[in-house]
């Protein structure tokens, strides 16, 4: 009998097969940075519908909105950075293709994940007071401090509601088969918070290593996820493409421009992009991206 923790390696299809329509899914990374795009592409091509998507958004939100997967979107921004406005997101908002939206302040979003991760109903915060975040989300309430300040004032603060997730999808650089996972880039973003806010977390990685290999050339502080937070591990090389996955690769700006042009173009433009890159599985996507670069290099 094995005395090791269990092997959690699975395929992209295994992950998608475990999900259900109507779920609340958190997507890690930040805007156009280290997004679990291989899993997002599979969601885009799945039969799942009526999803609640919780994301500091980039093309993950754009793709899922374009495919009509999102019933409710919780976000603070959606941007591709070098292309500031995400065309698929804009289109979805301007045609009301996403029926329900919750726009939060960036920091409120973190506080909401933190509340969920700590199994609290809310956490107090200043952010949101006076802004239209509270006007457009009248269900978000304030709470009066039980403690007066030195002037006797009891401050009314925003009670940021917990962002409880059914599932979190995150992409890191490395993991072992048990779900311990490390980021090697400049910023952990909030992938650990997503994982703890969720009932189940699936992590895709560039590379699966032996446990010992995780710290052989990398400081232990880069181990962001413990296996106790992780349900499944998927090895998806180039799986964050076309977002950053520093130091394995940077953002594919040329491809991102191609994506943005198709998303902001006619229905035929998008159909052509879909047919060329998105209609098949992850292997055919990666092959099509390779062919795209060989063609544009000529």
């Amino acid at each position, binding site marked *: 009998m094995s005395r090791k923790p269990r092997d959690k390696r699975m395929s992209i299809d295994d992950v998608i097969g475990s999900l259900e329509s109507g779920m609340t899914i958190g997507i890690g990374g930040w805007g156009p940075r280290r997004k679990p795009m291989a899993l997002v592409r599979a969601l885009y091509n799945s039969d799942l519908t009526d999803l609640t998507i919780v994301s500091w958004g980039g093309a993950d939100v754009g793709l899922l909105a374009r495919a009509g997967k999102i019933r409710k979107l919780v976000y603070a921004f959606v941007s591709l950075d070098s292309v500031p406005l995400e065309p698929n997101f804009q289109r979805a908002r*301007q045609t009301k293709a996403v029926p329900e939206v919750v726009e939060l302040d960036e*920091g409120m979003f973190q506080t909401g994940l933190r509340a969920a991760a700590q199994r609290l109903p809310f956490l107090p915060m*200043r952010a949101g007071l006076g*802004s*239209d*975040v509270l006007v457009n989300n009248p269900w978000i309430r304030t709470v009066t401090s039980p403690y007066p300040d030195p002037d006797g004032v009891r401050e009314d603060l925003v009670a940021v509601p917990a962002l409880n997730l059914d599932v979190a999808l995150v992409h890191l650089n490395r993991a072992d088969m048990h779900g311990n996972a490390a980021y090697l880039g400049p*910023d952990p*973003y909030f992938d650990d918070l997503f994982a703890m806010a969720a009932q189940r977390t699936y992590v895709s990685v560039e590379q699966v290593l032996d446990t010992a290999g995780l710290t052989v050339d990398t400081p232990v502080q880069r181990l962001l996820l413990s296996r106790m937070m992780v349900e499944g591990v998927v090895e998806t090389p180039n799986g964050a493409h076309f977002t950053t996955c520093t130091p394995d690769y940077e953002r594919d700006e040329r491809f991102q421009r191609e994506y943005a042009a198709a998303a902001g173009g006619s229905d035929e433009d998008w159909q052509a992009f879909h047919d060329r890159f998105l209609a098949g599985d992850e292997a055919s996507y990666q092959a099509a991206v390779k062919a795209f670069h060989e063609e544009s290099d000529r």
Partner: protein
Amino acid sequence: MTDWTRADVCAAAIADAFSQDGEIFASPMGLLPTLGVRLAKLTSNPDLVISDGESLFLGGVPPLGGTDVVEGWIPFRRVFDVVAYGKRHVMMGATQVDRHGNQNISAIGDFAQPKRQLLGSRGAPGNTVNNRTSYWVPKHSPRVFVEQVDIVSGVGPARAKAAGPAAARFNDVHRIVTNLAVLDVRGPADTVRLLSVHPGVTVDEVVDATGFDLAVPADVPSTRAPSYEELILIREMLDPKGLRFREVPDAAEAAQR
């Protein structure tokens, strides 16, 4: 030296917005604010803490797009910590600013189905009730300066006061620097006020380019011209490629094209 451009004047005006801040995290969004903050660190306020815009605090002052000695780590999660801690001055962009200094970067039109979806509110709601916030507007026009913003992302002083002491306590909208002028929100009843017009710009031009009743003091000075030292720093060190002219075109150069 008198052959400064409008972009140089804007950079110096932005630098002045940070000159009295002391040892805090200067957080510029976009090109001219980054140039202005770095200029301030090299001149009026060497104590400023600056970052690479990604996740590192830089010990020195690199040119736009450059890097320098690392003096700290500021991933996004720590940015939120510093916002709440308060030792930060952010200069954001603004698609709309209204008479009461509220800012919108969320969407144009009705929130439920906007005419034009923008970024989303990003960190503006949290910034404006936690730390000093300024705005940079590269094209001062009635489309930007509107009577009332469609969606309040950044909170001006009147709204903050109306929302209660917790909102007003750290609300500090400091400067609005544009390609034409420098403004603040200390006009009557917490409204936008003209502080100075850039050399070559008249008060009437600014009033005409503003879509609301702008508070104009009896005496409006000229925004100061950049010093010789500042011009050398801008041209030779911080922005030798002239990236600043993409945001604020050089009138002389534009005329030649």
